């Protein structure tokens, strides 16, 4: 019986909305746009925070990363092209960190993009020279074999550990363990295979690129055609590549000496991240004359994401609120018009036994049907917006099931909120006067 009533009420509502379909459609536009904004807001906010969480997982929430950057004044002095530029983090810095922060894991590293060969196949990778504790600070896991140890580091053994993605490129069917690959002029024996753990990098940034807004996102392929990483002992790196690199910029030669590209400090607990950052900041400020370093704290990405989220929430939230308010008022207006057009029908129904609450249910459900229709249109349209944002603004977005349910719920709630007054107006009409109404 209840079901029959619901069916009848819906059928009746649909009939009268369909009778004025143009009017109904126009009326729902406010709700459509409001719901669109809600969906977009939630999708962008969710995208930003998931992105931040991914990056944090990738970079390590307990890590403080100090990177070498080319100091600003160095970049401008192009006249003097023959002198050697020395800048960046040094082994001394790393030693100093270790001396001061006795309880933390401190991992220095050098990185270079390099072609590596296996027989006649080559692949471009990022060669990372580091120390045996690197796996502790990076989101990698040893699948087979081992990472290199202290002895390898000490004796500059030519051993390497390769990424799974590199294996697919050059080894194809051969078992990589025990094979030699050629990096620059030397052969390195593969002793282990690692795989990335945690969330997949969707931004296309390599693990050391931390700026979340940088560059277009194309998942699958890493930046600059880099197919993965190869890890070698830092000492071997140093002897192989030296510390001097020659940069060819616009026809001029520029020699640069950089000892370390990166030092990662892993602290024992989250609440030590920021104090450690401050200590390192002070230490570096007092020992480096130029600002040739940058300190990155993955944990701060969360704040950055929260900021992005807040900005979008304010902008889109206001748009949503205004559209929904205006839309709701528009709907109330149309429903008041409907009630007055249908005064006679209301009188007839009252004469035939409809109670006030029956009339309220009838008009309220009609309003809710109207706003839910708007909600569904808004959800359909709103789901396209995050797609466009991702496509053209390279911002990650995530549409959650919750946001769809919320949007649907909001449109229903708008229907109730703005339908209740017209419905009460209808229900409190005097039956006799309504019957006399023309």
């Amino acid at each position, binding site marked *: *019986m209840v079901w*029959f*009533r619901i*069916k*009848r009420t819906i059928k*009746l509502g649909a*009939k*009268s909305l369909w*009778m004025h379909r143009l009017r109904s459609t126009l009326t729902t536009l406010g709700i459509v746009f409001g719901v669109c904004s809600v969906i977009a807001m939630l999708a962008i906010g969710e995208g930003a925070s998931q992105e931040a969480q991914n990056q944090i997982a990738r970079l390590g929430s307990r890590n403080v990363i100090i990177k070498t950057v080319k100091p600003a004044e160095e970049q401008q002095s192009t006249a003097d092209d023959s002198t050697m530029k020395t800048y960046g983090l040094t082994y001394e810095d790393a030693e100093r960190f270790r001396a001061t922060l006795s309880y933390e894991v401190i991992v220095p590293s050098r990185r270079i993009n390099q072609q590596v060969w296996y027989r006649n196949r080559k692949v471009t990778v990022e060669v990372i020279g580091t120390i045996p504790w690197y796996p502790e600070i990076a989101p990698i896991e040893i699948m087979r074999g081992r990472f290199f140890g202290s002895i390898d580091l000490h004796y500059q053994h030519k051993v390497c550990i390769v990424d799974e993605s590199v294996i697919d490129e050059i080894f194809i069917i051969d078992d990589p363990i025990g094979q030699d690959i050629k990096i620059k002029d030397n052969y390195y024996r593969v002793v282990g295979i690692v795989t990335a753990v945690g969330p997949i990098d969707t931004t296309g940034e390599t693990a050391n690129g931390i700026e979340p807004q940088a560059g277009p996102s194309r998942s699958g392929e890493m930046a600059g055609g880099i197919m993965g990483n190869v890890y070698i002992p830092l000492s071997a790196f140093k002897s192989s590549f030296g510390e001097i690199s020659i940069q060819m910029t616009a026809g001029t030669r520029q020699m640069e000496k950089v000892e370390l590209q990166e030092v990662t400090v892993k602290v024992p607990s989250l609440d030590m991240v920021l104090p450690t950052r401050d200590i390192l900041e002070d230490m570096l400020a007092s020992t480096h004359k130029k600002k040739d370093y940058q300190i990155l704290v993955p944990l701060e990405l969360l704040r950055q994401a929260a900021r992005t989220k807040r900005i979008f929430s304010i902008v889109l939230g206001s748009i949503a609120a205004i559209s929904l308010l205006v839309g709701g008022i528009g709907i109330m207006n149309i429903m008041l018009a409907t009630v007055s057009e249908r005064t*006679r*029908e209301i*009188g*007839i*129904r*009252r*004469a*035939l*036994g*409809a*109670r*006030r*609450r*029956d009339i309220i249910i009838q008009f309220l459900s009609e309003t809710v049907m109207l706003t839910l229709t708007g909600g569904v249109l808004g959800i359909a349209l709103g789901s396209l917006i995050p797609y466009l944002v991702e496509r053209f603004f390279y911002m990650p977005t995530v549409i959650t099931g919750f946001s769809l349910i919320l949007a649907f719920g909001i449109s229903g709630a708008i229907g109730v909120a703005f339908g209740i007054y017209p419905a009460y107006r209808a229900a409190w009409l005097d*039956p*006799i006067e309504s*019957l006399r109404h023309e």
Partner: protein
Amino acid sequence: MAIVSLEKICKTYHLGSIDLHVLSQIDLTFKEGEYVAIMGPSGSGKSTMLNLLGCLDRPSSGRYFLGDRDVSILDDDELSQIRGQRIGFIFQSYNLIAQLNVIENIEVPMFYQGVTERPSYKRARELAETVGLGDRLDHIPSQLSGGQQQRVAIARALANDPLIILADEPTGNLDSESGGEILVLLDSLHQQGKTLIIVTHDTNVARRAHRIIHLLDGRVERIEINKKI
């Protein structure tokens, strides 16, 4: 047996400082199965009385018994309930719901009494056939003639098998031929034992009733008993 009785019913409208006594001191009873006509000049209070009888309105004073219930003290929900269960209305201007078809219009009173889908449809169909519209079930009012619309209205008035049927100038908008058909239909309802109260201007309509109540300025002027029936 009296199924409707009015005791000292008054209806007064307060228009500014003037009190307009539309009905004053009406004492009347109606018996089960009776066929009564109410006549009187325009503005004499016929419609007001019919609205009171139909529980659409409440008297300013006096008591109104419908069956064994004093309905002059009921609240709005209870009055709606009574209207749905015990009263069948037939209006001068048919008052069908424009967007509903014949069947759906007849089903409206049953819907508000919670009759379920199948019995409701079955009853509506039977009634439509009774009033001769079995072949027009899915027509909407604008596709029907005035006489046909009034027949739908009669079917609708019968839907919940009411205690009394109230008709306010049921033939007022119809030509004499279709008006005649409606009167024949009403006669047949009376023959089936329904209680009918009809407001009319037309002496030809009133002649068919047992009793004719003449109203004048809100009072019962005289009651005429039709001896021919």
